[in-house]
């Protein structure tokens, strides 16, 4: 436990240093925050536009889909904020910068994450939180959700950060063998996350199986929300969700540790 605390305090110190370095270029932060909020809000405008044409999407109305969208946005926004270096991991492999992480007496992942954060990406999460609040409010008014269930949704949104994070960790670890992973990361991250903006029931069975059984993006929002909205599943969805996500995260970390051993560094 003391190891964990010292790791955490070191991470925070490192993040502080990263922030100080960022503050050399102050203007970027506010611009970035607004930019990401607006950019990601357009995503939802598109979904909303679709829903005005087809008021019910697989039996879900705009507020219900908004719940899914909000949760996914919070999770990915937080991941992009805290996992900035993981998202840009190819550089560490191509330039051999991973060497420096292995030379520090700490877990490489912790050292890596501490080197940079992108707080402007919070704009994305913020935008998701606003849409989530609006939709949750409406669903409480209509009596579909109670306060406790909304609390669960909020907690699941935060915990759900582990889903895109683990996807990124898994694909970054593939890089220890193949080096070039930018495209793979984009592919494995964006397609499933975009898919998770809609109820998975609109997809064919094989895709639904893929998005819950293999890449557990379904557990980031759809699986628990489906049950909470009374559209299927059972109470198991509520406790299975954190278990699956935690399990997937552990699996991804295990793969990362395995990959470390295969790191080939660079020529010189």
């Amino acid at each position, binding site marked *: 436990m003391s190891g964990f605390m*010292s790791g955490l*305090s*070191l991470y925070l*110190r*490192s993040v502080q*240093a990263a922030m*100080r*370095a*960022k503050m*050399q270029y102050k203007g970027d932060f506010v611009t970035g925050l607004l930019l990401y909020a607006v950019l990601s809000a357009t995503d939802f405008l598109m979904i909303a536009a679709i829903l005005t044409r087809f008021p019910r999407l697989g039996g879900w109305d705009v507020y219900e889909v908004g719940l899914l969208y909000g949760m996914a946005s919070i999770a990915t926004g937080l991941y992009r904020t805290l996992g900035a270096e993981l998202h840009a991991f190819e550089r560490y492999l191509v330039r051999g910068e991973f*060497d*420096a992480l*292995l*030379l*520090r*007496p*700490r877990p490489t992942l912790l050292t890596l994450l501490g080197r940079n954060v992108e707080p402007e990406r919070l704009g994305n999460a913020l935008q998701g939180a606003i849409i989530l609040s609006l939709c949750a409010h409406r669903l409480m008014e209509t009596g579909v959700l109670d306060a406790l269930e909304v609390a669960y949704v909020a907690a699941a949104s935060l915990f759900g950060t582990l889903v895109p994070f683990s996807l990124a960790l898994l694909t970054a670890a*593939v890089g220890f*063998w*193949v080096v*070039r*992973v930018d*495209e*793979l990361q984009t*592919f494995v991250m964006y397609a499933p996350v975009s898919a998770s903006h809609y109820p998975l029931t609109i997809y064919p069975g094989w895709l639904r199986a893929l998005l819950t059984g293999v890449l557990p993006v379904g557990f980031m929002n759809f699986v628990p929300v489906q049950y909470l909205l009374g559209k299927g599943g059972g109470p198991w969805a509520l406790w299975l969700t954190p278990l699956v996500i935690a399990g997937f995260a552990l699996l991804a970390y295990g793969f990362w540790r395995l990959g470390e*051993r*295969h*790191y*080939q*560094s660079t*020529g*010189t």
Partner: protein
Amino acid sequence: MSAIVEAIELRKVFRVAKDRPGVLGALRGLFSREGREIRAVDGISFSIGRGEFVGYLGPNGAGKSTTIKMLAGILHPTSGEVRVDGLSPQRSRKEVVRRLGVVFGQRTQAWWDLPVRDTLELLAAMYGVKPAEYRATLKRFDELLEIGAILDVPVRKLSLGQRMRADLVAAWLHRPPVVFLDEPTIGLDAVAKRRIREFLREVNRQEGTTILLTTHDMDDIEELCSRVMVINHGRLVYDGDVEGMRRAVGAPSRMRVEFAAPPQGPLVGPWTAAAQAGPAVTVAFDRSRCTAAEVIAALSRYGQIRDIYMEEPDIEQVIERLYGQPGAAAGPLSALSSGGR
């Protein structure tokens, strides 16, 4: 002298896969067994004692960096073992790197946009250096490297020499018993080089830090190292002192002798070449074949000797000869490489 860094039959084979573009290409590369093998390090063994200052030489691509990276736990050997202070860097990475300082001359570990102090403080926290120790270390290094003046300057504004000084302090901050230096003087001017050499000599003597240094700068080796290891084509071709390396290569030593009167007749003796200019004679001889005393004895038959000047072969020439011989790896040098301790 007890060993602090050991390599036992160390080997690293890289499999270079064909580069394929795109996601599918990357995935295929993951499973394919195509490609060729490169033996970067091909079975080398050595043992470095506590407090030794060892130079590690070799042409580009000979396997120097690969060796260092295996010693530091960055790479996993294909076979063989590494021991640093009795521990395997591959199995106990964190414990080993606590005992290590590493400096790569061509890239800094410091935070680019922040003052040097920020990086040092972060490192102190990372290695659990107590505040009192931290201050004492900074004070000591300020005396040796005059870093006080650059502590509050952002790293990106430092000159190359200043940055190297900052990197050296960063590497020594947690007082590691072993430090690996990869080209620490590369690109520096003469003054900066001299200062860094003085620092290295000082910490090696005073703190007893064991240092393994790779360099292309022969002055680094001549001035600092009590022992040299030479690697070529992934194999150790020499391990011993600098003097022994000169002998092993058979690079000619030169002796210039001044006679009281110009000597007569063709000069015959154990030398390989002789040139005469009045009373002065210069002979080149191979130290592996005869000693300087024998040369003097032979020369003294041609008259009374007034003065003698010795010219040892430049280590640069020695290295050139060493690398210039493609067969050197398996050649006569192997027999001489037992010079290590």
